[in-house]
């Protein structure tokens, strides 16, 4: 049963990931991304990380990809791009290839090397049971708002900075504005 769920979810993730890269229509690529996110959510549920799965769907599938689609629709870039025209310039394509291969090598090396250490498990967490359905969530809350609260707050500050920066960049200055 576990293996079956894993295989199904893994196929979802991989098909979605390939779709994001290979589909030429941006809306289809975004839809493939949703497939990937759902596959990851299923994997979370299979590992009894229900909360993570729900948050994954609410935040990523429910908000972020919606924003992607929103931007694609508003900007009207939803037509398939003409791939015959070289959009990247002459140097970028080989550079991307080198970087991609390098990245792949690093990841593959890391996975091969960590095979040994993966056998050592950390301290386990309590998953939800009939008596205590919220044990899982309580533990997440303890670590986010207790042990790692500084890192968590700093991340939220980072997001605020990003939002303020975007607003400042998007606003035209008074001098640039043409009188309407």
């Amino acid at each position, binding site marked *: 049963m576990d293996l079956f769920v894993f295989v199904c979810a893994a196929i979802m993730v991989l098909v979605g990931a390939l779709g994001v890269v290979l589909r030429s229509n941006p*809306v289809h690529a975004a*839809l493939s991304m949703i497939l990937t996110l759902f596959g990851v959510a299923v994997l979370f549920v299979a590992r009894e990380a229900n909360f993570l799965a*729900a948050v994954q769907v*609410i935040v990523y*599938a429910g908000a972020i990809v*919606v924003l992607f689609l929103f931007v694609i*629709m508003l900007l009207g870039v939803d037509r398939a791009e003409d791939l015959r025209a070289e959009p990247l310039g002459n140097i970028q394509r080989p550079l991307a290839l080198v970087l991609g291969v390098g990245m792949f090598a690093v990841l593959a090396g890391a996975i091969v090397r960590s095979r040994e250490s993966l056998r050592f498990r950390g301290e386990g967490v309590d998953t939800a049971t009939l008596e205590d*359905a*919220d044990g899982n969530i309580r533990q997440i809350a303890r670590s986010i708002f207790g042990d790692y609260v500084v890192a968590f707050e700093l991340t939220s500050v980072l997001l605020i900075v990003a939002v303020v920066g975007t607003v400042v960049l998007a606003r035209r200055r008074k001098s640039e*504005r043409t009188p309407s």
Partner: protein
Amino acid sequence: MSAVSFLAIDPLLEGDFLWTPLLIVLVKVLVVFVVGLVATMLMVWFERKAIAGMQNRVGPNKAGPFGLLQTLADGIKLFFKEDLLPERADKFVFRLAPYLSFVPAFLAFAIIPLGGDFRDGNGGLVTWFGQTTRVQLADPPVGVLFALAISSIAVYGIMLAGWSSGSKYPLLGSVRASAQMVSYEASLGLSLAAVILVCGTLSTSGIVNAQSSLGSWNLVATGVVPFLIFLVSATAELNRPPFDLVEAEQELVGGFNTEYSSIRFALFFLAEFMNTITMSALIVTLFFGGPQPITIGGTSLDIPLVPNGLEGTVWLLLKVLVFLYIYVWFRGTLPRFRYDQLMDLGWKFLIPASLGWFMLLAGQRLADDREWDQWIVMPLSLAVITLAFAMMQLAFRASDRNREAEGVQF
């Protein structure tokens, strides 16, 4: 860990694999699906009849007794109509979109406790054929978050339907829809957080179980404000009047579903009404005790002639009917919002208000835990929130002034 235990926290699914639990689950799935379809059919009839009454008309009265079968007739008509596929449509997405709208509508219904015996600390457990279970399809440990996740998925159906039609008005409708639904999702989630804070659990049966008397109904326990915010946000999330800008006929022809016909249109229609029913049931579950009877001071009202096992279902039905009527009432009386008013209400009022109220409740609970004096804590937190609100109003006024100085007009 049994293989299926992660699907739901239900005693039925604990232990070894047996055929009786499997059959019970299958029957539950079937019942929930059929109840959903029939309830949708009746809801369409109810809405048409009630709104006709409000407008001094008769409403459907030809098909069946009191026109009850009108929806069935409409459904059959739609089923046999020609299925049009616009030439400029994105074929795959155009076919996919109705299902993305229809499936979440039914999925969300799975976590609503539909009945059961919540009295005397029973926790809503009932025994069928020697198996102890809950009267709800699934009770995942993340409960209400599942409902939020599903309602955030529902936006895709409308959004992609509008986009894939390859036409101008549906696209405008779907762009409006996605902005509206994403905006109101935030205040929906924040007012939900107040309920979770008070109940201390995410599971829907746990939330119902915590509301054992009238005083502990979350409506009272969270102090009414989260309920009002939830009701408004839910109406916006459902794209129902007065927030039905998605399908504003006067501006957008028909909105996101203009290009749809036949059974695909019927699926959108079905999803819309199913969502209304699910959202009403969710409101009842979260704020009005779900299948709990009305209990005042230890004595609970008993419906005569109904066996105790079924009573929860009857209570739920009665409470849901009230909200379904309120939704029809909204449609009958309130004019549609303007788009900028919609966004102002969502971002500048509902989200700050729900956040402020949540902080107030959290402060109150913290004071309770630490045994601080409530008479000092509450006025102090109220003062802080009022100050924050005043500062926010000042900021809005400044931005309005700047806009006027720049000559932006609405």
